[in-house]
């Protein structure tokens, strides 16, 4: 039976970690993810987990320790945000290319400058090409559910890739909300033990990891790594199916909200999806055919599935909570637009950069985006493609 609880997003993640009971957790504090290792260290101190908690001197060291311990054969978690993830950058690639299924809770926060501690996606979007699987969460429930599923996805023998589970800093990480938890033993049974085929502490079959690779072999290794990312798509859906059997909660690559007959649609990531759903219900009452695609899995990118889901829409606004500084739109826009290139009807598409550095997004703001889409539909002219939402002119 589900346990009804009210927790912040950070508490929900820390609790999921406790229920899974990892072998090692190296961590370095950074706002707004600090509470996760803080709560977890209390579990360690209280003897509620068997985890080796490693206090390190930086995030670069945190990820390095994760790599060492996961390679040794230990299930390893950490948490970070913003500049912390940026400092891990070099090691993120080492983790992914060494095929080590580390799980990281990433609490999305803007990258400096100017200095800002609030939510946007510039941190994890910057790491989108590092070879990590990326799962995004609308609310505390999804952060909890995604973290539990992440472990099984990453550790699957056809995948063996690290996973980052993302949620919006403060907006969900520090907001108390209702959620349903699983019992400890149910989570433990679902995630099982980490049983890699090969690991450094296996004396039966000694191995070495992280070798130098010449041009003669490097590309074959990258091709193999890319195959693992493709394999992740099948595994993500299998794990979601198994999780649905436990909880009744449905997860896929993305959520389609009121898309069945939508003329105008948004594509969005994380907490603002909830605000958008509220706007959609309001506008549907006024007879406007509006819908939403909420991306859960950004890596691997659900290229064909996005095309199928959006091909009958007339106008689309892709919402990027980070800049790409390409002077032509944000990262989500570029990928969604690319996915739509082969669709027969090619919907009109615009990009909105929104919510940077924690800029609040209200139901009314989302309504203005839909109204802009209806203007495009009526006038049959897209106008400016690359736009900003709620910026002072």
């Amino acid at each position, binding site marked *: 039976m589900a346990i009804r609880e009210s927790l912040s997003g950070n508490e929900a993640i820390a609790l999921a970690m406790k229920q899974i009971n990892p072998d090692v957790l190296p961590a370095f504090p950074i706002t707004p993810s600090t509470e996760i290792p803080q709560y977890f260290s209390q579990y360690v101190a209280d003897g509620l987990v068997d985890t080796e908690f490693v206090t390190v001197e930086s995030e670069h060291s945190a990820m390095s320790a994760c790599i060492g311990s996961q390679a040794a054969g230990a299930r390893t978690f950490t948490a970070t945000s913003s500049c912390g993830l940026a400092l891990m950058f070099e090691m993120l690639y080492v983790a992914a290319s060494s095929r080590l299924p580390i799980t990281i809770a990433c609490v999305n926060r803007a990258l400096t400058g100017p200095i800002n501690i609030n939510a946007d996606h510039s941190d994890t979007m910057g790491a989108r090409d590092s070879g990590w699987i990326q799962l995004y969460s609308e609310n505390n429930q999804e952060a909890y559910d995604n973290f539990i599923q992440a472990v099984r996805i990453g550790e699957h023998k056809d995948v063996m890739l690290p996973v980052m589970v993302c949620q919006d800093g403060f907006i969900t990480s520090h*907001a*108390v*909300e209702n959620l349903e938890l699983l019992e400890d033993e149910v989570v433990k049974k679902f995630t099982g033990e980490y049983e890699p085929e090969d690991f450094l502490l296996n004396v039966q079959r000694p191995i070495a990891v992280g070798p130098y690779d010449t041009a003669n072999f490097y590309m074959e290794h990258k091709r193999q790594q890319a195959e693992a990312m493709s394999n992740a798509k099948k595994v993500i859906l299998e794990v979601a199916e198994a999780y649905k059997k436990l909880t009744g909660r449905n997860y896929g690559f993305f959520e389609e909200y009121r898309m069945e007959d939508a003329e105008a649609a948004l594509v969005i990531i994380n*907490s*603002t999806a*909830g605000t958008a759903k509220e706007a959609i219900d309001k506008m549907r009452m006024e007879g406007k055919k509006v819908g939403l695609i909420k991306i859960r899995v950004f890596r691997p990118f659900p290229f064909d599935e996005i095309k199928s889901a959006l091909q009958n829409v007339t106008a689309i606004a892709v919402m990027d909570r980070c800049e790409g500084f390409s002077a032509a739109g944000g990262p989500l826009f570029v990928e969604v637009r690319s996915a739509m290139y082969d669709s027969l009807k090619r919907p009109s598409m615009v990009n909105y950069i929104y919510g940077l550095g924690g800029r*609040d*997004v209200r*139901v009314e703001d989302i309504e203005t985006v839909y109204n802009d889409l209806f203007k495009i539909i009526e006038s049959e002219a897209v106008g400016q493609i690359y736009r900003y939402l709620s910026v002072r002119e």
Partner: protein
Amino acid sequence: MAKTVEIRWHGRGGQGAKTASLLLAEVAFNAGNFVQGFPEYGPERMGAPITAYNRISNEKIRVHSNIYEPDYVVVVDETLLGSVDVTAGLKSSGAIIVNTEKLPAEIQGHLSGYMGKICTIDARKVSLETLGKYFPNTPMLGAVVKVSGVMEEEKFLNDMKKSFAHKFATKPEVIEGNIKAIEMSMKEVNGI
């Protein structure tokens, strides 16, 4: 149809407005509601004005924005009245609850022409009499439950007893004082 009550808290860093909003979320949750309790974060320090929010609903809450048109506003420190527009967007069908020794009529002039209900509670007096120290958040929590009627009073008091017993497990001597603070402020709040 969703019935959602939205509450905005104004306080100063260190006075416990955020804690009070999280406590209110907890008790409203225990009473069977869907809740949100969240602070608005910036570079806060002790004494700087801060804002926190609550949504309490009979249906799942999906909105993740701040609250611009609250049903209730709670002002934990009356010195904020001169510097923060505490009644901004406040619904006239709602109420503002201010921690002050003054009566509602005496502070009306500081509320930028707000025409709705004004309630006051001397949380300093309540806190000093029941806890021996100035912790305004517990009395303010009692006052906001009384004024907003977001939950049944008796159930609220029982939940708070349980909640405090858990929260203060290592210092049980403060449980009784906190409960008295809530009871007293529910009795003494002016302007209902």
